[in-house]
């Protein structure tokens, strides 16, 4: 079986000895896959190695059928990668930047022009495509990069924390733009909501390793029919996490905890990390 991404014991050790990615192996074949983890978990390093920007210390990976070390040129023809916190050239317009990128990808100038306009309209930047990028909001700037990937028609798109630092409304706008991508997507995020909203499959990363993976539904299976109770006051059989008492209780007990003044929340991917934190502490 040919996988979209096949990672073979890939490792990155930075000078100074820090192991950023610790011999990870994985086979990814979903349309949208998300790497989720806290800052420093190794998500960006893994994504940069897969998108041929960073050389692994050992191991390799196959992206869209090509080896990232042996067939770098082929891989680069198949992918589009938007770096973390990438920012457009302020003095140029989104139209100019998307067109320039497409011409760089060997599109004919005429095709590049029409594809740039089409992609910018798709992500809702039709009215702003001829304004200097300096005048765009943070969300619009990120959407410009998504437009760039849409227009490129790349088989595989890598998005490194595409909504970090954006306000909630801008995040929704960028999510909507990402959903318009027809390519396979690998994105990193530390927003659980983002992973839930966009992904077919989620990989949980911590300390350079993959801790767990699956669909959002399967990962949350262990919390089935449960709710999260949070309280400043101690609750019997609860965990203490960062000064807060947390307990996972059956859904039937919701009313009782509300009466007692606790906060009741639905289960999200956050809880996998909270539980992992608890495991580590214990």
């Amino acid at each position, binding site marked *: 079986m040919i996988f979209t991404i096949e990672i073979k014991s890939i490792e990155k050790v930075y000078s100074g000895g820090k192991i950023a990615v610790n011999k990870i192996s994985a086979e990814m074949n979903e349309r949208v896959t998300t790497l989720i983890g806290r800052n420093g978990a190794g998500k960006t390093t893994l994504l940069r190695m897969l998108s041929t920007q960073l050389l692994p210390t050992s191991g390799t990976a196959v992206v869209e059928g090509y080896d990232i070390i042996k067939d770098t040129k082929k891989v680069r023809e198949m992918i589009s990668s938007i770096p973390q916190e*990438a920012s*457009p*050239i302020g003095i140029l317009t989104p139209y100019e930047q998307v067109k320039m990128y497409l011409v760089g*990808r060997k599109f004919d100038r005429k095709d590049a022009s029409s594809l740039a306009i089409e992609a910018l309209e798709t992500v809702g930047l039709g009215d702003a495509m001829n304004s200097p990028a300096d005048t765009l909001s943070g969300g619009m700037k990120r959407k410009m990069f998504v437009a760039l990937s849409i227009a490129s028609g790349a088989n595989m798109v890598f998005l490194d924390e595409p909504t970090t630092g954006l306000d909630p409304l801008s995040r929704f706008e960028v999510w909507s733009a990402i959903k318009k991508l027809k390519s396979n997507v690998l994105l990193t995020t530390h927003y659980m909501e983002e992973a839930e909203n966009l992904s077919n499959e989620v990989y949980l990363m911590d300390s350079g390793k993959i801790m767990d993976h699956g669909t959002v539904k399967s990962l949350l299976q262990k919390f089935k029919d449960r709710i999260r109770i949070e309280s400043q006051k101690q609750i019997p059989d609860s965990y203490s996490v960062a000064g807060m008492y947390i307990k996972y209780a059956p859904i039937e007990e919701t009313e009782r905890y509300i009466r007692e003044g606790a906060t009741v929340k639905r289960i999200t991917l956050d809880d996998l990390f909270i539980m992992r934190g608890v495991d580590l502490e214990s």
Partner: protein
Amino acid sequence: MNPKFILQFSYYYGIKVITRGPSYIIASLVTPLTLLFVVYILTAGKLVEFAIVGGMISLIASIGLQSAGDASFFRLQLRIQELYVASDVTPIDYMLAMTLSFLAFSIPGIVVYSLLGAYYGLYSLQTSAFMAFLIVMLIISTSAIAFIISGLIKHIRNIWGITSILSIIMTIIPPTFYPYVDLQGRLGTDGLIYLLSLSPATPAAISAQMVFGLMPWDNSMFGTMMAFLIGETIIYFAIAKFLTRWREV
């Protein structure tokens, strides 16, 4: 190589930005024009022709070196370089596109110095062609130096200081605004000339002084300077390609 990309990039980032950010062009013209004025006053106009020919060389070399700021900004701050790494753009396409942008961006300065040169009757077909050759070699070699620097620095803040220092050392100290023979007899016969020739502006200025008839023709010196200029351009470009950090390790 992807010439369409190189031309498209330089049209947008070299030509279109001239009207959108004219202050940068004025800033790049200020130093050579100020030095031209100082040379004119201090020598009662005697060395003004040196300063016009050298001013053009100084301007191009200075713009090339200061492009390190843009190259670093694109790599470290905007992360635009990474965007192009993960595509079919090669490091040579990217460097040539940036270099041609800076050349396009120098057009207003080239026009100013060409008009001054024409006013003083310095330009013939032969000298114009030679100056065009020097401009191309200078923009490639100094942009390559800029890429080497931008590939080495880790913090964007350092680049502004480094380029200012290099710009002075590599474009004003060389014999751009004075006769090159003033350097002879220091550090041996031509030792200081060879030392300063690490900057492409030095061989460019010395050969121009001979071609423009400002200094007597010296076959040996002209040949040596051409070898320096062409050799440096190739070597600096090769090192820059290696250090551009197209794939980090």
